[in-house]
C-alpha cells in the first residue's frame, strides 16, 4: 500500500492531526501501518482488548509478570536499531530478567504532526521483526497525534506480560556474599552509538547499538543454572546503576575487576574523547546476572553458547558489606580501588 492511499496523508507523506481524530484517517493508519505490521490476521474483527486463555498462560508457569516502559530517543533511527526495536527489546528484557517468558506486548504511539509516514512504517516493521525474533506478539495498541512541536517525532509506550517459570525466585535482593557477577558482553555500545548518531559531536565511528531481546539468553541461562539469584538489564545508568542497586537491595559489597570489563575499542575511544565512563553508558542488550560461585562456570558456558552471550565475562563478586555499608568497589589494574557511585543524572561530554 502506498502512502497516499492512507487518507489524511498529504502529498508529502506526512502525519496530520486527522490521524489521531478517531475517523477514517486514523482507522486507515492503524489498519494500513500498525495492524499490517503486527497482526497475524489483520482482517479479524478488532476488539477493544486482547484476550488470553488462562490455560495457555498456566502452561508456561505459575505467576504473571507485568511491566511497562516509555521510549523517547533522538535520533529515532540509529545504527543497530530504532525507537521501535528499543521499545520491544526494553519490555521483553524487563520481563526476561525476572525469569519470565514474554507472551504479549502492547504498543501505544504518540506521533507528532508532520512526521514522515515512511518513518512510522519503518519503525512498525522493525518492531514487528524484533517481536517475531523474541517470540512475542504485539496484541494491542493505541495511536495519538499531537500538534507539531508537542513531541519529538514519535514516542512509544510498550507494556508486556509474561509468565514466570515455576520455582524461579529471581530478585535484586537475593545476592549473597560469594556469588559472582556475569555480564553477557561489551558495555556501553548503545550509549556510545546514540551519542555518535546524534551527529552534533561530529564523531565518525562504525558502532551500532547492542539493542537485542535477551529472553533467549535468559532461558538458556535459567535452563543451565536454575538458581540464578538476580538478573538486571543494564539500560539507563549503565552497569554502574544496576550494580549500585544490587549492592543496596542485597546489602552486600559488589567488587568488580576493571580489567575484566568487556568494552569495545571504539566505545573506549568515544569515552576517551568525551571524558565519559563506559560503566555509566546505557546498554539495550546487556544484563548482569548474579549466580552462586559454584555455578559460575556453567552459567558462563551457557551464556557463551548463545549468540548474545559470546563475550560474556565474570566481572566481579559479592562480598559481605563491611560494617553494614553496601557499596560497589572497582579494583583497577593498579591494585587500587575506588567506589562506583550511583549515576547522578546523564553523563555530559566534558573537555576538562
Amino acid at each position, binding site marked *: 500500500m502506498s502512502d497516499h492511499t492512507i487518507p489524511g496523508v498529504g502529498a508529502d507523506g506526512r502525519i496530520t492531526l486527522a490521524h489521531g481524530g478517531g475517523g477514517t484517517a486514523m482507522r486507515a493508519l492503524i489498519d494500513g501501518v500498525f495492524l499490517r505490521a503486527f497482526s497475524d490476521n489483520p482482517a479479524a474483527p478488532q476488539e477493544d482488548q486482547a484476550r488470553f486463555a488462562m490455560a495457555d498462560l498456566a502452561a508456561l508457569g505459575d505467576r504473571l509478570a507485568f511491566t511497562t516502559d516509555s521510549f523517547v530517543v533522538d535520533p529515532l533511527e540509529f545504527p543497530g536499531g530504532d525507537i521501535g526495536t528499543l521499545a520491544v527489546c526494553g519490555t521483553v528484557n524487563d520481563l526476561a530478567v525476572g525469569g519470565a517468558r514474554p507472551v504479549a506486548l502492547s504498543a501505544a504511539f504518540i506521533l507528532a504532526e508532520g512526521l514522515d509516514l515512511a518513518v512510522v512504517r519503518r519503525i512498525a516493521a522493525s518492531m514487528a521483526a524484533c517481536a517475531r525474533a523474541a517470540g512475542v506478539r504485539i496484541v494491542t495498541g493505541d495511536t495519538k497525534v499531537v500538534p507539531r512541536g508537542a513531541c519529538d517525532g514519535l514516542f512509544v509506550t510498550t507494556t508486556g506480560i509474561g509468565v514466570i517459570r515455576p520455582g524461579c525466585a529471581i530478585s535484586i535482593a537475593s545476592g549473597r556474599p560469594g556469588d559472582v557477577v556475569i555480564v553477557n558482553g561489551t558495555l556501553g555500545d548503545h550509549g556510545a552509538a546514540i551519542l555518535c548518531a546524534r551527529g552534533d559531536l561530529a564523531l565518525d565511528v562504525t558502532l551500532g547499538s547492542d539493542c537485542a531481546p535477551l529472553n533467549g539468553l535468559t532461558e538458556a541461562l535459567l535452563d543451565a543454572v536454575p538458581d540464578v539469584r538476580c538478573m538486571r538489564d543494564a539500560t539507563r545508568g549503565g552497569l554502574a546503576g544496576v550494580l549500585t542497586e544490587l549492592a543496596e537491595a542485597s546489602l552486600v559489597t559488589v567488587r568488580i575487576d576493571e580489567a575484566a570489563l568487556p568494552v569495545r575499542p571504539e566505545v573506549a575511544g568515544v569515552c576517551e574523547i568525551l571524558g565519559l565512563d563506559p560503566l555509566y553508558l546505557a546498554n539495550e542488550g546487556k544484563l548482569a546476572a548474579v549466580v552462586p560461585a559454584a555455578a559460575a562456570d556453567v552459567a558462563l558456558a551457557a551464556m557463551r553458547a548463545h549468540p548474545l552471550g559470546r563475550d560474556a565475562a565474570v566481572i566481579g563478586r559479592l562480598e559481605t558489606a563491611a560494617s553494614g*555499608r553496601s557499596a560497589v568497589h572497582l579494583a583497577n*589494574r593498579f591494585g587500587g580501588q575506588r567506589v562506583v557511585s550511583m549515576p547522578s543524572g546523564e553523563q555530559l561530554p566534558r573537555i*576538562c
Partner: protein
Amino acid sequence: MRFVDEFRDPELADRLFSEIARVAERIGRTRTRPVTVMEVCGGHTHTIFRYALETRMPENVEFAHGPGCPVCVLPMGRIDDAIAIARRPEVIFTTFGDAMRVPGAQGTLLQARAAGADVRMVYSPLDALALARANPERQVVFFALGFETTAPSTALTVLRAAAEGIGNFSIMCQHITIIPTLRALLSQDDFRVDGFIGPGHVSMVIGTRPYDFIASEFHRPLVVAGFEPLDILQSLLMVLRQVDACTARIENQYARVVYADGNPAAMAAIDRVYETRPACEWRGLGTIAGSGLSLRPAWRAFDAEQRFAVTPHHVADPGACRCGDVLTGRIRPTQCPAFGTSCTPDCPSGALMVSSEGACAAYYQYQGQKGAA
C-alpha cells in the same frame, strides 16, 4: 605505539609505587611533616582518583588538588551572564558539556535550557561556528572557557569566523591563565605545598619556561606531567626525588607532547586575538590580577557581551563552602562542613563539587561519601 596503554602498565606502576615508597621513607627520616604535592590540573585530579593512586601512597605523601579545573573556578556571576545571553530568543548558546551543570545565582545552563533557552553542547568551538554557518538567521554564541590549552582553539575559531565573514557568531570569553594564579598561591604565607605536578596540556601550549620562577623565586620543584597513571606516578617520583635532594628545578616528564618552547603557532593565535584582563575573578579564590583573557579591540565584533550589552556582574561565593581552602591545600575536601551535606554532585554549591574534575566531586564519586577518605 598508541601512546595510551603503554602508560597504563600495572607492572611498571608497581615498580613506581615501591620506588615512591622508598624515597618517601628516606625523606621521612629527616622530616616529620608529610610531603604535600599539588597537582595543578583537574585532569590529573581525575586520573589520581580514577586509578585510585591516592590509596597506594605512603603515609607521608599527600596530594593537594589545585585550581586547574576551569569549570570549577567559574564564578557564579559569569554563569548568570551566560544565562542572560542564552535566554535571548535569537541566540543559540553553545558550550562544552562541563559548563552545563555549574550553578550561578540564576541556576544552571541546563535549567535555562529547561526553561526554554536554546543551549547546545558542542565538542569543539568549530562545531559552534558550523552551527552559525547553518543558522544564518540566528545568533550563535560560544562560551569560551578554559586555560591556555583551550584558548588557541577559540582564537583560531574567531579568526576563521572573521575570514569567512560569519557575522552571526560571537564568543563569551572566560579564558583564564594559570601562571598568575600559581604565583598568587605561592605568595600566600601559609601555602604549605612542597612541590608541583605541572599541567601537561597547558604546557604543550605555553612550554616549560613560564614555570621557572617557581624554582628560582619560590624554591619549589615542578614536574610537567602527562595524564596517564604512569605519567603521574613518575612525575610524583621526580618531585619526591627533588624534595629528597633539596633541589628545586623545573622538569618535564611529558616530553613526548610538551616542548620547552610550547607551541609557538598556538601562542601566536592567543596573542593575536586576546589580551590580558587587568583582573579576573576565580570561584573560590577571589580576584587575581592578570589571570584572564579578553578579546583585543580588533576582534570586539565577536564579543558576545558587547553584542548583547551584558554587563558582567559579581555574585559572592556561597558561604558554607571552603573551596578556597581546599584549592590551596589547607584542608581536604572531606574537612569542609558542606561536603556531602549541603554540597553534593547532584546539587553542588561549591566550585569543586561542580565538575567531575573538581577535587570534592572526585572525592565524593570515587571515595564514597562523608567519612570515607
